């Protein structure tokens, strides 16, 4: 019996969200009196995978098949299922990412497992039950859910678990082959188009986010958002109407019908704080709101606020960050 964790890699590095899920898995393993094994997907280096020892991982399985560099649902599912069988994994942990959700849902059928996504805490195992807490109702509530099958699959929401760091600890990296065939790559992408990051930070992985709404008045003013984001090392985001009228690209749209973020810091500039917007951001650790209307609903969900004009306040904040560094 063991715990298996799927770690996503990109450009040779293990993604930050995967360091969190690896830490989650090793703590679950400890609770169950067993060890955690990682199976890596994406483009990884052996040296970086070995460093997963710092998150408490006992060993790492890696299939160097080059076509696994990009996400392929069929192949990834087969690879992880094979690793789960080999390791007799009773618990499988993934990131609650687009990859994690796509693979986790298929795996739950193949491995006859109970599946919980959007999980925010370590499981509770009192009284022989296995219960996880997950976000529900678009961030407006939580549900404690019992996973009843013998096997359990858990997709962990980003930034809900602190990554462990036992400096210098390494894990052995073993080569692993799921004997993938051409048929497993039938749904391989024809093309992968990455956003132009231009030195910026990717929103889904970001710890700090600066976001703009209709109060920014037009795309020509986004340099104010970008300057502050750059000074902080933050990603940029926006409200729905802003992406609807193409002031900003769709992938920056956060909220109920956009992406959900849970960074350490979310700075909302000229955003009213409609309930559908809050749904995408209200699990952020600290929320700052800058709005000229003291009655803006966002202030009720905020930790810090400035009642003021974004065109006046944003340059001051950027300047203050620069002085701090």
């Amino acid at each position, binding site marked *: 019996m063991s715990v298996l964790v799927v770690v996503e890699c990109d450009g040779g590095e293990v993604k930050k969200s995967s360091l969190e899920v690896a830490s989650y898995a090793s703590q679950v393993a400890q609770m169950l009196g067993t060890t955690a094994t990682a199976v890596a997907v994406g483009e990884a280096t052996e040296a970086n995978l070995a460093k997963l020892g710092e998150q408490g991982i006992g060993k790492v399985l890696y299939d160097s098949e080059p076509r696994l560099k990009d996400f392929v649902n069929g192949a990834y599912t087969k690879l992880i299922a094979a690793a789960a069988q080999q390791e007799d994994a009773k618990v499988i942990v993934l990131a609650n990412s687009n990859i994690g959700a796509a693979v986790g849902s298929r795996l739950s059928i193949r491995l006859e497992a109970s599946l919980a996504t959007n999980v925010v805490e370590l499981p509770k195992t009192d009284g022989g039950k296995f219960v996880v807490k997950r976000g529900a*109702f678009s961030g407006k509530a939580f549900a404690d859910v019992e996973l009843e099958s013998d096997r359990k699959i858990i997709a962990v929401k980003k930034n809900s678990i602190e990554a462990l760091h036992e400096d210098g600890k390494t894990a052995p990296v073993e080569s692993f082959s799921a004997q993938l065939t051409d048929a497993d790559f039938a749904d391989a992408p*024809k093309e992968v188009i990455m956003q132009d990051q231009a030195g910026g930070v990717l929103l889904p992985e970001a710890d700090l986010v600066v976001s703009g709404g209709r109060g920014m008045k037009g795309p020509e003013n986004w340099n104010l958002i970008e300057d502050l984001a750059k000074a902080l090392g933050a990603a940029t985001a926006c409200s729905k109407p802003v992406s609807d009228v193409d002031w900003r690209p769709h992938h920056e749209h956060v909220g*109920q019908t956009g992406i959900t973020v849970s960074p350490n810091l979310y700075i909302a500039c000229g955003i009213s704080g409609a309930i559908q917007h809050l749904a995408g951001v209200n699990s952020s650790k*600290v929320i700052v709101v800058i709005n000229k209307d003291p009655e803006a609903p966002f202030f009720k969900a905020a*930790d810090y606020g400035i009642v003021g004009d974004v065109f006046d306040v944003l340059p001051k904040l950027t300047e203050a960050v620069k002085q701090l560094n």
Partner: protein
Amino acid sequence: MKFLVCISNVPDTTTKITFTPDNKEFNKAGVQFVINPWDEYALTRAIELKEAQGGGTVTVLNVGEADTEPNIRKALAIGADDAIRVNAHPKDAFFVAKQIAAIAKDGGYDVILMGKESIDYNGFQVHGMVGELLGIPTVAPAMKLDMNGNTATLEREIEGGKEIVEVNTPFVASCQQPMCEPRIPNMRGIMTARTKPLKVVEPTADAPRTEVDHFALPPAKQGVKLIPAENAGELIKLLRNEAKVI
């Protein structure tokens, strides 16, 4: 081509969430239910593709009790041809996926569409489960869907970018914006929806694999600390020294 569009019945996005006294269930009292906003993308795109092909059918499917029928009728008013309701409380994602797979197998659908996730349970699970149960590919979440004969070209969102994926029918896709502009019913649609077929079938015997122990609301915020605009730089110091996030 036969399209199957799965819709769920969810509380309106502005709903204040509360639970029954034992915290086991969502409190439906006084709540307005709508078609899950993500499912509206799936529905409208299926109708658009059917129109472009000049033939075929769009069937909507809901796993739910009789109180979901107003929203099923709404989907028919938007332009679906017929509907199926599996008469059961949607106990969990696995249970729902089993129902959808059973209907899909029987009906021989070419394209099975649904929203990315439901805004109540936020599972983002059903698409993959259905695909795996039927042994067909899933593309999730899809931002764009075009058909050319039996081949579909989709844009799939990945963290930090997108993939262009090609699959042949039958397949499952979970949909999100900016796939299309969701349609709203017009008067003619509402009139014709009344007489479109809505078939009610009983569920399969499958048991769910998860059970809600209880729901809870997030802890309330402490209240906002306001910093005067003249002194905006002070905020940055607080974020470093007090909140310790930068």
